């Protein structure tokens, strides 16, 4: 168990001026990119990772967490003003936010989104801080056999939950494992699938794959959809009533149960790998509407609709770190990017993290709490400015983002070879998205690939190559059973979907 001195030292690290600056910078960048439709926090995090190399681990991770959290707040701005969510997570926010903005209350709608987002986020951070250390102690009792079984289970769940087909999910995971197997194999250290390029002897560079698949491929998709004319600027209509520009305490307090329900849904779904904040937001919205005495007012500018969506999608961010910090398994792309930042800074996520790097983890928790406060302050001050940002031309935004990707990957990989790899994965990511294969599963499988192979090797060594000995490992048996059950359930669900169609 982590001692109190380590916890206090960690929180003390987070509250230094240097860290505060990076959290603040991350939140500002996050809110800015969240407000620009098409960029979003995930792409911003992918682009930002190489630029954090020169930093110590805590400010680097704190900055990325700030970007992620800020992005969720910023994503609500275009959702409310343009009915075009800056991030997919904010799609449910647009259902009531946009009608409210059309009534001349854009600031009221964005402020409600801000307050409920921070409420949900703080709730899930408290859960994360409370449960992750005890869960990590449990996870420490897991040996290679259990870890291997856990990964099989994670792959089964991710393949079934993300995307529209279980088999496409499995193919995406297989492709991720294939990409991860490029380079020296972990047992014999013989070069594998390097085709004479010794630059990839240690494996494909994380930055190239992540930025290519997540940022460049998405930019390519957005660019290919633009049809000649630049997006017009937004005309924001406001009334003169000051109450239409703020959220009163009575209005906020009136949404407390809605936000509590949303935060609970977001936290539970966020702790499970693969479900994601978009699903949480819609689930919370649906639950709130179903439980409302005035369901007919939803979709017409009801504050409860905004509160439900934003509290749920923001609560996912903190909860996503529960499987990452306790098991080393990322539950979302955002978490996968944070895991890659950990690895780039020489920190191996997993149950040993609390034992080996307890101070860093509690520093991260401190930074997360700080990021929530910063989100509130920056949001209060910056909402009017982010409203202007929404109308920035896409040509400028995307051209700058592409240049940043080239520079970032070149810095991360020490040359242009990594940039060429990035382009190849951008093309692969674009094609995968176009054909309905999840790049999220690909990236998670790519991150987990080496550990998966090592766990398999260790499991076979422990059981002396006799797989029937898995019967001596009850946790592994349960996890494998759950993996099979999930597979069968997803298979039967897809049959039901087909019948419905």
């Amino acid at each position, binding site marked *: 168990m982590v001692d109190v001195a380590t916890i206090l030292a960690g929180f003390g690290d987070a509250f230094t001026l240097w860290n505060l600056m990076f959290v603040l910078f991350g939140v500002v960048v996050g809110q800015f990119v969240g407000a620009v439709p098409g960029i979003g926090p995930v792409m911003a995090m992918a682009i930002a990772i190489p630029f954090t190399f020169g930093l110590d681990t805590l400010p680097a991770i704190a900055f990325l967490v700030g970007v992620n959290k800020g992005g969720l707040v910023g994503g609500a701005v275009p959702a409310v003003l343009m009915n075009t969510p800056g991030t997919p997570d904010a799609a449910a926010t647009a259902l009531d936010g946009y009608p409210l903005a059309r009534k001349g209350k854009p600031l009221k709608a964005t402020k409600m989104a801000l307050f409920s987002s921070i409420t949900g986020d703080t709730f899930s951070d408290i859960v994360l801080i409370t449960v992750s250390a005890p869960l990590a102690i449990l996870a420490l009792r897991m040996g290679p056999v259990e870890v291997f079984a856990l990964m099989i289970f994670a792959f089964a769940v991710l393949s079934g939950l993300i995307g529209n087909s279980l088999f496409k999910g499995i193919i995406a995971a297989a492709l991720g494992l294939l990409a991860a197997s490029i380079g020296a194999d972990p047992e014999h250290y013989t070069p594998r699938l390097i085709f004479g390029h010794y630059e990839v002897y240690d494996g494909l560079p994380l930055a190239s794959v992540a930025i290519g698949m997540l940022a460049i491929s998405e930019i390519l*998709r957005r660019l*290919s959809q633009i049809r000649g004319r*630049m997006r017009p600027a937004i005309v924001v209509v406001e009334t003169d009533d000051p109450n239409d520009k703020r959220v009163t305490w009575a209005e906020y307090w009136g949404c407390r149960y809605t936000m509590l329900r949303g935060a609970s849904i977001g936290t539970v779904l966020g702790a499970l790998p693969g479900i994601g904040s978009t699903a949480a937001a819609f689930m919370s919205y649906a639950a709130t509407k179903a439980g409302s005495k005035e369901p007919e007012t939803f979709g017409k500018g009801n504050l409860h609709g905004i509160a439900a969506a934003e509290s749920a999608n923001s609560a996912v961010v903190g909860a996503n770190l529960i499987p990452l910090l306790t098991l080393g398994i990322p539950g979302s792309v955002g978490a996968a990017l944070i895991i890659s930042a950990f690895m780039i800074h020489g920190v191996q996520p997993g149950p040993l993290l609390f034992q080996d790097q307890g101070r860093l983890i509690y520093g991260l928790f401190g930074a997360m709490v700080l990021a929530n406060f910063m989100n509130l302050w920056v949001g209060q001050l910056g909402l009017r400015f982010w409203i202007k940002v929404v109308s920035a031309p896409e040509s400028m935004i995307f051209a700058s983002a592409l240049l940043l990707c080239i520079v970032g990957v070149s810095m991360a990989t020490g040359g242009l070879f990594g940039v060429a790899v990035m382009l190849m994965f951008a093309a692969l990511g674009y094609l995968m998205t176009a054909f309905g294969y999840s790049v999220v599963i690909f990236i998670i499988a790519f991150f987990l690939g080496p550990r998966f192979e090592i766990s398999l090797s260790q499991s076979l060594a422990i059981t002396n190559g006799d797989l029937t000995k898995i019967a001596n490992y009850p946790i592994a048996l349960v996890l494998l059973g759950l993996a099979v059950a999930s597979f069968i359930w997803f298979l039967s669900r897809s049959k039901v979907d087909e019948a419905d169609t």
Partner: protein
Amino acid sequence: MTKTADRASGALFVVLGLALYFYVFPNNIETVDSGWVYPSTIPNAVAIVLIVCGAILTVKTTQQGLPPAREFGMALVFLALLSLGIWLVSVVGFLLAAPIIAPALMLAIGERRLLWLALGCFATPALIWFFVVQLLDRSLP
């Protein structure tokens, strides 16, 4: 059209899996006779998964639609532009290449306003230079 997309990608993965299993892996992975997991174990398993799941997908299709051909074409154009830009960076360096790449991309996107083009041409590369070279003390490609 919707079923064609899944059938085509499924068939592609069957062919890819077969090519990997029978040609690419035997020629590019060293054969090792000791140990628990051979270097080819995971890649071979992946190839088998691709063949099996690809085959299933050709039969068990989803409602996946494809973007219009124009969008594929535009994506290809932007990818080609980026490749050219990266080649240019390798020849003349980022500082000289960026003021050409940025406005070229902006023009391809459809930007025609001179002010924004000028900003893309000069301000963006200058800001990146300031951030990377001056603040982070790292070199540009």
